């Protein structure tokens, strides 16, 4: 454990923050501008993992393990979410022969 935390602390904290901010922004922008449902899904995963990265970094720097426990929860949740999300996408494809989210615009005013 000491080994891992010291390894993490080799890189300064600022770099972690910067990296996860960049990954998170890529995720947000990806969600906003892409129309392929799978890509959007992947971008959501990017955002989640950016946060995970940050949690782990803070946890190591402040010597508190609860941040890493939290990451496990996030990953478990993400896995469950992926299962449901992919199932939805498969059903969408079967029904519309496309995974373009702009096709799914019938539920409106």
């Amino acid at each position, binding site marked *: 454990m000491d080994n891992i935390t010291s390894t993490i602390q080799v890189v300064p904290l600022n770099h972690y923050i910067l990296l996860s901010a960049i990954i998170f922004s890529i995720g*947000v922008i990806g*969600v*906003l501008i892409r*129309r392929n449902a799978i890509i*959007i899904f992947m971008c959501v995963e990017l955002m989640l993992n950016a946060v995970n990265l940050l949690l782990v970094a803070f946890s190591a720097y402040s010597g508190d393990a609860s941040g890493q426990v939290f990451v496990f929860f996030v990953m478990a949740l993400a896995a469950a979410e992926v299962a449901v999300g992919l199932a939805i996408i498969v059903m969408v494809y079967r029904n519309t022969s496309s995974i373009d*989210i*702009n096709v*799914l*615009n*019938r*539920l*409106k*005013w």
Partner: protein
Amino acid sequence: MIDLVWLIPLFPFIGFLINGLGRNFLPKVVIGSIASLAVLASFGVSLGIFFEFNATEPVIINLFDWIKVGGIDIPFSFQIDQLSILMLLIITGIGSLIHIYSVGYMSHDAGFGKFFAYLNLFVFFMLLLVLGSNYVIMFIGWEGVGLCSYLLIGFWYTNANYADAAKKAFIMNRIGDLGFLLGVFLIISTFGSVSFAEIFPKAAGMISGDATLTLITILLFIGAIGKSAQLPLFTWLPDAMAGPTPVSALIHAATMVTAGIYMIARSNILFTLSPVTMSIIAVIGLATAIIAAIIALTQTDIKKVLAYSTVSQLGYMFLGLGVGAYTGAFFHVLTHAFFKALLFLGAGSVIHAMSDEQDMRKMGGLKSKLPITFFTMLMGTLAISGLPPFAGFFSKDEILAHVYEHNKLLWIIGLLGALLTAFYMFRMMFLTFWGSFRGTEEQKHHLHESPISMTLPLIILAVLSVVGGFIGVPEVLGGGHWLSHYLAPVFESSTSKMGELALDHTTEYMLMGISVGGVVLAILYAYIKYIKNNHVPVLDSEPRSALAKISYSKFYFDEFYNAIIQKPLDALSGFFYKVIDKSGIDALVNGLGKGSIEASKTLRLLQTGNVGFYIFAMVIGVIALLLYSFFKF
């Protein structure tokens, strides 16, 4: 026997339940017998109590604890004393006669079962009213008889006029009931109790003219005005004649309308100590007596004549109460119950024979066709006119003697009312039974004496009207005045404060002589006018003299109330409906609805169905929240 007092109201209540539930499938014979037997059984128990009771103090029968809140303890208990026993005998005795009469009178009516159920319920509530040992139980009975009166006036509710008459009676009674209720509240806050046995001794220690007592008694008297049809709330009683005739006899002549007199006689000590209220009662009673008598002079509907006569006689009773003649007033309640029930039942018999015709202008010459009805009604008329030795003479004379001692002017007006009474009653008799028949041939063909179930009560009541007065023969005529001795314990605390009647015998003989002489003259005048000259009241379409018109139109009381109460109330309701309700409350509520519809018409366009837009909006929202929390802290 006294312990069985709870049976008295129970019998009619059971009768009500059986007849009410079985009204559609029980045969008429069963319904009629159950209803009559229930009241007769109560009469039997009452009679037993009457003969057994000899205490001077009231006996309180505690049935169960009813309301116990804070400092107030209201038990459900009955009070037996001379006053309630006599009322019990009147209610159950005359009640059972009228039940028997109704079996014949209502035999062709479709609502036979309903009628007897209501009648039993009425008797139940009336018994509760007189038996209650506190004002709250009395109030239950008070409201209950009002309800039954409403139900029975509107018995033939398919006729809109009858239904309106029922509503009128109910609403006018409500005005009085409010006064009664406020009076009871004031009693609670003053004495901390509602039981007669606790209030009256406390009140007896208060000084005469106490402001609170005066207010209490005025409020109670307002209740009596409504229930006993006095000025200015009397107009419901003549309209109440819309109900079946036995109802008029039982409720609107013999029992319910005397509830106000019973209540005041019961609370006599409170009233004795409030001279102001006493004067008000005397003046209102006298004014009612004289105005109703004047109206009765020109009425052509046989039941209306009797109705106004009832109002007028009730006025006499209040006049008696107002001058402190409690025994006299109660005596008149008793004799009036006999002869007025008799007159109403006789009128019912006439109406029955005339195929539901009530207009005296179409009657005449019924003497030979309805001999029993004629003879019994003649007894009743002689009694109400106040000729000795009939019942009305003694009671009316006792009231007038007290009035004479109290105030000579009141006496003169009261005597005038008595003469008017004799005149209009004999006018009714002459128009109905003498002369030649004025109805249609078909009615003439149908004329018949009523069945035995109707004539038997008439005969019994006629006997009572003749001999009923002997229970109160005054000392001056060699009697012992049994009634006054019997009731003495009830009015003891009042008489000790007011003193006895102190007229010498010459004055009493003179008073009797004047009133009897006047009555004979009034009867003679009626005889000359209606038999010698064969005068028949003119039709509605023909002109009348100004005075007759005022009397015939009942002093325009209804029109007056219409103008000063109903019209402004209608206008106010119209204002509230159109302005406050329609353009105020409705506009607000509808405005909210319309506003949200308009707003959502624009806002719903945001829901485009474009997932990208939703995500964009979400991100914008998250950023906005972040900025908000960032700048806030």
